[in-house]
C-alpha cells in the first residue's frame, strides 16, 4: 500500500512539475537567450529562399555576438517547412509551444505566411515577414501581430510600372504564376500600365512548376508585344528566360521581372543580360551601410547577398532596435507598440513602420541585369530609385493614390 501511495504522489508531483515547470523555469532564467523561430522552407524546390533567410540570420548572430540584445544572447531555432502551409503551421506551433519563441520570421511562401499569420493573435507571438509578397497580408488579412519589413508584391509592380510609364514601350504582355502572388501582381501591373496609356496585349497564368514554356513563348511572340512582364517564382523564371533565349524571343521582346534576383542571374547566365525589373533589395545600392554589409556578408558566405539575404538582415536588425526601445523581449504587446510608427535606417535607405497596416515604407527600385567584370555573375544595376511614399499602397489596400 505504501509503495502504491508513494507512486501516486510521485506521479501527481511529476505531472504538476511537467505542466507548471516551464513557467517557473522561464522566470528563473530571465537572462536566457532571446529565441527567434524560423519556420523556413529549407528543403525542396523553394529551399533557396529559406536558405537566404538562414544565411542572413547567421551573419546577424555573428554581428551581435558578445553584446546581444538587452544584454541577452540571441538564439535562432530553424525548422524546415518544405514550403507546405500545413507543415509550416505545425512547425510554427512547435516553436511557440515547445521552444517558447516570441518571434517568428523567415517564412518563405505567401501561402505559408497567410496560414501562420492567422494563428498569431491566438499564440500572442510577433510574426515578422521579410520575404512574403502577397498584398493581402497587410490588407485584407491584416492582424496586429504581423509586421512586413520587406517590399510587397504590389510595391514591386508599382516600382516597375513607374519606370515603364516614363519609357517608350507601348505594348506589354503579362505572364504570372498561377497563384495568389502571380495573379495579384499581374492585376496590379495591368491596372497601372493601362492608367499610363499602355496596352496590355495578353495575360497568361502558367502553373507553378511549368518545365516547358514553348506554348507561352509562342503566344508572346504572336501578340507582337515589346515587353513581357514576368511574375514567376524563382525556378520558373529561370526556365522561362532560358527557353525564351533559345527561341530567340528575347531579341524582340524585353523581359521585365517583378523580382530580378541573383538566383536567376546565376542560373541563366549571360542570356539574361539587359533584363529589367524591380528588386526588393539590390545589393549594389550605394550607401555606406550597405557597402559594409555586402563586405561582411561576402566574407562570411563567400557570395554576394541576394534579395532576401538583405531584407531578412534588415528585419532582424530593426527587430533588435525595437526590442531595445521597448526594454523587453518578452512582452509582445509592448514591442508591437514600440514598433508602430518607428523608423529605421535600412541598408538601402530610410524605413518607416506604418501603424495603420504594419507595412514598412521604403524605397523602391527599378534595376537591370548587367555584366560587370568585377563580379562572377550578372548584377542588378539600379536604373531608378523611387521614394517610399510613391511605391507603398494606401493603408490596408493594394491600391495606389
Amino acid at each position: 500500500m505504501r509503495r502504491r501511495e508513494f507512486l501516486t504522489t510521485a506521479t501527481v508531483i511529476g505531472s504538476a512539475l511537467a505542466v507548471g515547470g516551464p513557467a517557473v523555469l522561464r522566470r528563473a532564467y530571465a537572462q536566457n537567450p532571446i529565441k527567434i523561430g524560423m519556420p523556413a522552407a529549407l528543403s525542396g524546390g523553394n529551399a533557396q529562399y529559406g536558405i537566404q533567410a538562414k544565411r542572413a540570420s547567421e551573419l546577424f548572430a555573428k554581428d551581435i555576438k558578445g553584446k546581444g540584445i538587452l544584454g541577452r544572447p540571441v538564439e535562432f531555432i530553424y525548422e524546415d517547412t518544405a514550403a507546405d502551409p500545413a507543415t509550416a503551421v505545425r512547425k510554427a506551433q512547435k516553436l511557440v509551444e515547445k521552444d517558447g519563441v516570441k518571434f517568428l520570421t523567415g517564412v518563405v511562401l505567401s501561402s505559408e505566411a497567410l496560414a501562420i499569420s492567422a494563428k498569431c493573435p491566438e499564440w500572442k507571438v510577433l510574426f515578422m515577414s521579410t520575404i512574403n509578397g502577397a498584398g493581402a497580408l497587410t490588407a485584407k488579412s491584416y492582424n496586429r501581430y504581423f509586421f512586413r519589413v520587406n517590399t510587397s508584391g504590389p510595391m514591386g509592380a508599382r516600382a516597375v510600372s513607374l519606370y515603364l510609364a516614363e519609357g517608350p514601350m507601348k505594348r506589354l504582355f503579362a505572364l504570372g504564376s498561377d497563384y495568389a502572388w502571380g495573379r495579384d501582381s499581374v492585376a496590379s501591373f495591368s491596372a497601372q500600365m493601362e492608367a499610363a496609356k499602355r496596352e496590355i496585349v495578353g495575360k497568361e497564368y502558367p502553373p507553378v512548376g511549368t518545365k516547358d514554356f514553348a506554348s507561352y513563348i509562342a503566344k508572346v511572340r504572336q501578340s507582337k508585344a515589346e515587353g513581357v512582364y514576368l511574375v514567376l517564382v524563382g525556378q520558373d523564371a529561370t526556365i522561362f528566360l532560358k527557353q525564351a533565349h533559345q527561341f530567340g524571343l528575347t531579341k524582340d521582346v524585353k523581359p521585365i521581372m517583378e523580382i530580378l534576383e541573383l538566383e536567376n542571374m546565376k542560373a541563366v547566365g549571360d542570356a539574361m543580360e539587359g533584363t529589367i525589373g524591380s528588386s526588393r533589395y539590390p545589393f549594389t545600392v550605394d550607401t555606406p551601410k550597405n557597402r559594409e554589409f555586402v563586405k561582411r556578408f561576402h566574407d562570411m558566405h563567400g557570395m554576394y547577398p541576394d534579395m532576401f539575404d538583405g531584407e531578412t538582415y534588415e528585419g532582424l536588425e530593426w527587430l533588435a532596435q525595437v526590442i531595445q526601445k521597448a526594454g523587453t523581449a518578452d512582452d509582445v504587446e509592448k514591442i508591437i507598440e514600440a514598433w508602430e510608427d518607428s523608423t529605421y535606417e535600412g541598408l538601402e535607405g530610410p524605413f518607416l513602420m506604418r501603424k495603420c497596416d504594419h507595412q514598412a515604407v521604403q524605397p523602391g527600385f527599378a534595376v537591370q541585369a548587367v555584366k560587370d567584370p568585377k563580379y562572377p555573375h550578372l548584377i542588378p544595376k539600379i536604373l531608378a530609385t523611387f521614394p517610399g511614399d510613391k511605391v507603398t499602397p494606401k493603408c490596408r489596400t493594394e491600391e495606389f493614390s
Partner: protein
Amino acid sequence: MSLILEQLLNALALAGLLFLVSAGLSLVFGILRVVNFAHGVFYMLGAYLGFTTVAVTGWFWPSLLIVPPVVGLVGALLEASTLRFIYRRLPIYQLLLTFGLALILEESIRVLYGPTAKGVEPPPLLQGAISLGGLLYPRYRLFLVVLGLVVGAAVWLILTRTRAGLVVRAVAQNAEMADCLGADVARVRTLVFGAACALAGLGGVAAAPMTTAYLGMGIGVIVDAFVVVVIGGLGSIPGSMAGSLIVGAAQTWGAFYLPETAMVIMYAVMGLILIFRPWGLFGEEE
C-alpha cells in the same frame, strides 16, 4: 502553317523528354512490379551530373555517354542493397522505401550542389535557332525529338529482338517459371533497375540545357511520367511512346489553345483511359 508546325515540334520535343523518363518507370513496374517513386530523382541526378561533366570537361557530348552508366550504377547498387530484400513484402513497403530513397537522394544533391539552379549550355552545334520554312526553331529541341525516337527504337529492339530481351520478358511474364528455367531472376531485376535508372539519367542530361538542373525537377517529372505510363500501359515501350506523345501534346497544345484548362486535359485523358481501358493503350489485360 508555321504555327501548326511549331506546335507540333513543341509537342514532339516534350514527348521525347517524357519518353526517356517514363520508359524506365514502365519497365521497372512491368518487370519488378515496383512503383518506383525514386525514378524522378535519378532523372534529377542525371541533370546535375551532366552539369558537373560539362563543367569539368567543357564538352556536352561526353556527358551524354558518361552520365547514364553512372546513374545506372547508382540505381543498380541501391536495388541490390535495399529493394532486393523486400520484393516479397506488400507493395506499400516498396513504395515507402523508394519514397525514402527519393528524399535522401534529393537532399544529398541539395547539400552537394546548393540551392541555386545550375544552367547547362547546349553544345555549339545545337545552339541558337534554325529556320524551317519561315519558322525559327531552337536546334536543341529538334535534337530532343531525334533522341527520343532513337532511344525508343533501340530499347524496343533490345527487348524484342535479342536474347537478353527475351529473358527480361520471360521474367516479366512469370518470374518463378523463368527462375525454374535457369534465368537468374535477381540479377535480371538488378540489371533492369539499373538500365531504367540509366534511361532516366539520360533524360536528365538531355533536359538540363532546356530546363536547367534544379531542385524539385524530379518530383515535377515523376507525376507526368506516371500519367504517361497509365495511359500507355504498364511495362510497354510502345505504350510509353504513345503516352508521351499524348501527354506532350495535351500539355503544349492545351497551354496554347485552352490555357485555363491546360492542366486538366492530361488528367482527363488519363481518366478516360482508366474507365474504358484500365490496362492502358498498349498494356495487356490481366
